[in-house]
């Protein structure tokens, strides 16, 4: 059975980068698809890929990952600078991040405004 977990940004905001990655990867390795409010920093995303590679084994094949950002806002000047500072200091809470184990999620197809989750067919247990 696949579990979908909705995770608010507040659940990870107090964690270190490695802590966030561990929390998300632990869920993926537990066959849980996580829908996280907001997104990781670019450096955290690459770290997530690195740690994922270290964890790959016979059972865990890696992850499918997608980030959907909201449409472009029309902020300019000071408002844009303020948003950038807030995102840098407090983390980017806009949009959402979808992370699922590759043995459960076959692919994530994404347009800028739409996201499709393609699931693997469940293997019959004997």
């Amino acid at each position: 059975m696949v579990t979908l977990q909705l995770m608010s940004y507040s659940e990870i905001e107090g964690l270190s980068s490695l802590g966030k990655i561990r929390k998300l990867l632990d869920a993926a390795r537990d066959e849980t698809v996580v829908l996280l409010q907001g997104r990781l920093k670019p450096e955290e995303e690459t770290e997530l890929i690195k740690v994922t590679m270290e964890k790959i084994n016979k059972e865990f094949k890696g992850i499918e990952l997608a980030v959907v950002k909201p449409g472009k806002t029309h902020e300019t000047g000071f408002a844009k600078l303020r948003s950038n500072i807030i995102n840098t200091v407090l983390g980017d809470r806009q949009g959402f991040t979808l992370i699922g184990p590759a043995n459960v999620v076959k692919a994530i197809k994404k347009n800028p405004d739409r996201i499709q989750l393609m699931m693997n067919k469940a293997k019959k247990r004997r």
Partner: protein
Amino acid sequence: MLDIFKKFVRKVFRDIFLRRKELKLGFYGPPNAGKTTLANKICKDWVGKDIGVVSEIAHETREVKVIDKVEIDYEGNKLTFAIADTPGIATKIDYEEFIKAGLKKTVAKKRAKEATRGVIDAIKWIDNMDVVVVVLDATKDPYSQVNITIIGNLQARNIPVLVVANKTDLKKANIKKVQAAFPQYDVVGMSAKKGKGMDAFYEALFALVG
């Protein structure tokens, strides 16, 4: 204001590049996008040898390969590069996919293990690069998170980026879609396999670092 600051930082970096003798030019992208094919084409053109082996099966390049002192002369301007061909970056690696592609189980498992290490190495090498060419397969979805993550990281590190929409010799290739996905970057459409679009590539590369 932040954009002005970023442009200033980028200009300072470029000025530093020009005073240096050799620029580290990295080829990044997802597996099977044509990184090695393009790097081979450049190395063959300017130093007369290939940098790596090309294969239809993904993750043929499983370690970072470098050729130093590649002097490129484009319309009278000369720049010397250390060219680094990196393993394709992926979020998943399944040895069973290699078996489906025709490899034996033991070979497939070994390839998968080496491929995971290759992805880690490719990511570690990002910080060493002065300029990066992100090679994308123009027949595939450019909005893949791997592409966005690679480019986001390069942007965060202020590393100049040139995006190549490769495989334009194929019918399904869609350069406009790649351009729409990454409007802030120069996107060069080309077929590295057929050697088409090389002039536009060199022009864009020299415009970026020259």
